[in-house]
């Protein structure tokens, strides 16, 4: 068993089991930590694919930023007792849900497998990327040339998110009813 297979096996197992933990852990804090685990496993998988920049950002953005946000909110809301929400639904509901999602998964896997070896559309092999100055450089160049519009649009997305979050989170002004 060579390294890639080993790495793949380990990281994907962690990812899948971690995901299951995320959704089946009763305590949201536990879920959050399982999610961190999944993020790290994904970072490993990215690295395996040679996507170093993505792997790094995965750790920085997801594990570093988003998860902190989650944990922060969980703490803020101060949920002491774990919510037994899985049991709140009926057995039939759960079975139907599992079956439907499984069916969807089966269909999607079938579709994915049909396209498992496409004719490559590009020519940026690992060697080519290396010759361009590495993964990060190649991506950055594209980001600020071809993807400049994406980039600018994303800035408006963030602007919107900021306004939205501020709106939702700020204390009510004097004109409004009630207050927190």
């Amino acid at each position, binding site marked *: 068993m060579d390294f890639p297979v080993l790495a793949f096996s380990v990281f994907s197992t962690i990812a899948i089991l971690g995901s299951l933990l995320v959704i089946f852990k009763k305590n949201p804090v536990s879920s959050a930590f399982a999610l961190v685990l999944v993020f790290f496993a994904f970072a490993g998988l990215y690295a395996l694919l040679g996507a170093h920049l993505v792997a790094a950002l995965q750790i920085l953005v997801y594990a570093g930023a988003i998860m902190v946000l989650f944990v922060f909110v969980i703490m803020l809301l101060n949920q002491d007792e774990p919510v037994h929400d899985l049991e709140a639904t009926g057995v039939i509901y759960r079975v139907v849900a599992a079956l439907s999602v499984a069916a969807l998964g089966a269909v999607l896997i079938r579709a994915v497998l049909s*396209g498992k070896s496409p004719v490559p559309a590009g020519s940026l092999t690992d060697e080519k990327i290396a010759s361009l100055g590495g993964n990060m450089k190649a991506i950055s160049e594209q980001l600020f040339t071809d993807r400049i519009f994406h980039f600018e649009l994303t800035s408006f997305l963030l602007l919107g*998110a900021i306004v939205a979050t501020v709106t939702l989170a700020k204390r009510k002004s004097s004109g409004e009813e009630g207050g927190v």
Partner: protein
Amino acid sequence: MNEVIQTLMPWLILAAGILVTLLVSVIRVESKRPAQFSALATLILTGTSAIQTLALPGEAVFAGSIEISSLSRILLALFSLIGILFIMGGDRYLTKERIHLSDYYHLLLIMILGAGVMVAAKDLVVLFIALEVMSLPAYTLAGFRRSDSRSNEAAIKYFVLGGAVGAVFLLGAAFIFGATGSTQFPAIYAWSRQPATAGNLLFAAGHFLVLVAFLFKVAAAPFHFWKPDVYEGAPTPVTGVMSTLVAVASFVTLVRLVHLPALDTSGWESYLSAVKGTVRALAVISLLVGSLVIITQKNLKRLFAYSSISQSGYLMLGVLASLNPGQGISQVLVYLFGYVFAAVGLFVLLAQSEPRGDTGVELVDLTGLVKKSPLRTALWSVLLFSMAGMPFTVGFFTKYFIFLSSVGTGEAPLVILAALCAVVSAYAYLRPIGLMVMREADPGAAQWSGGFWSQFVVIVSVILVVFLGLMPNAMIQYLKGIPLIH
């Protein structure tokens, strides 16, 4: 670069306007008027600019990320108009509900920007980002009545389902990327031109998942469940914006996504017929769900939610027609325009009510309105007539066009079903009129009062509805000339 600026001018004005509006509201925090005027000015400028540049040729900019064409320009102008009308028409409601905040204008402008970019996007990733730019403010606006748990509920449902569907869209985009090696429309189109690509399941699955996201946004059954709840819970002007701005942008995008691959390539016949079959099924289900449930509704916002579900059904007929050779998408555009003109008026009218209690406007609140306010009754009636597709309102021609093009492409049985559904839902549209005219006012009925601007918006909407109901030729002619961009 100058040409790019010129081409993108309306969008740039809008973007700049957003920043200016943010700035002025930060400078004068205690009043929302500066933000309101700034937003209005921005939208007026954007709309004017979009209309002025209508005749310019279409052009793809930023390495094919977006294409500014007559379609996106006219839609941006329409979005600006919607924005203007809802800023004017929603003013009184927001004051009344004590949620008159400048954030309303910021979010509205950002939504319009998202919608405007979305209809112009030529790249799935841009499309996704634009979708989120449009949706995030929409989620927030749905929860804008922050102290009302119904509003919270609407926002959260909208957000959770929208988020999930966003992920589904992305998965579809990934599949398409996997199959074609690109996320750009022209590349995907070119890829599909190769006959050997026909029957590629990965692409098919990806295409379907991408479509599902927009089927969800336009609430085509069975992806409609969020709509009644969100409509009911959201503040009325926001519901109006969702039902017009979001619906139009999403539907145009949906049509463009349906035509993502070149369906007329030889070898793609079975693919085309599968698409047709799916659209047909969606149309049937949407029509049935929309028109059967609408007659059981008592809450007016829910009623309009189901109405928009059945409108999706009619629009699906338009999409179906557009899948035939030689057919454009003008029937869909005409329908959307007609629908918007009536819907703006309806939701602004709805915002004029002052129901007792917090259950929203029920049918009973309309009873005896003719005595209290004959003008308002007349306005209601015209707009509801348009919704029901009665002649001499724009709603007639929009349905007419859809039916005509569907019949012309051999979908007569479906049109008959749609026609019967129109009869069933006509009951739901006429019942409010009946209550207004024939029933004595219920003691618990809501009071109705609208300020000048609110009434002004409704009258503008009614004038548009009636004018286009009599002279739709110019509009149809113009919209017929708009090509679908791949």
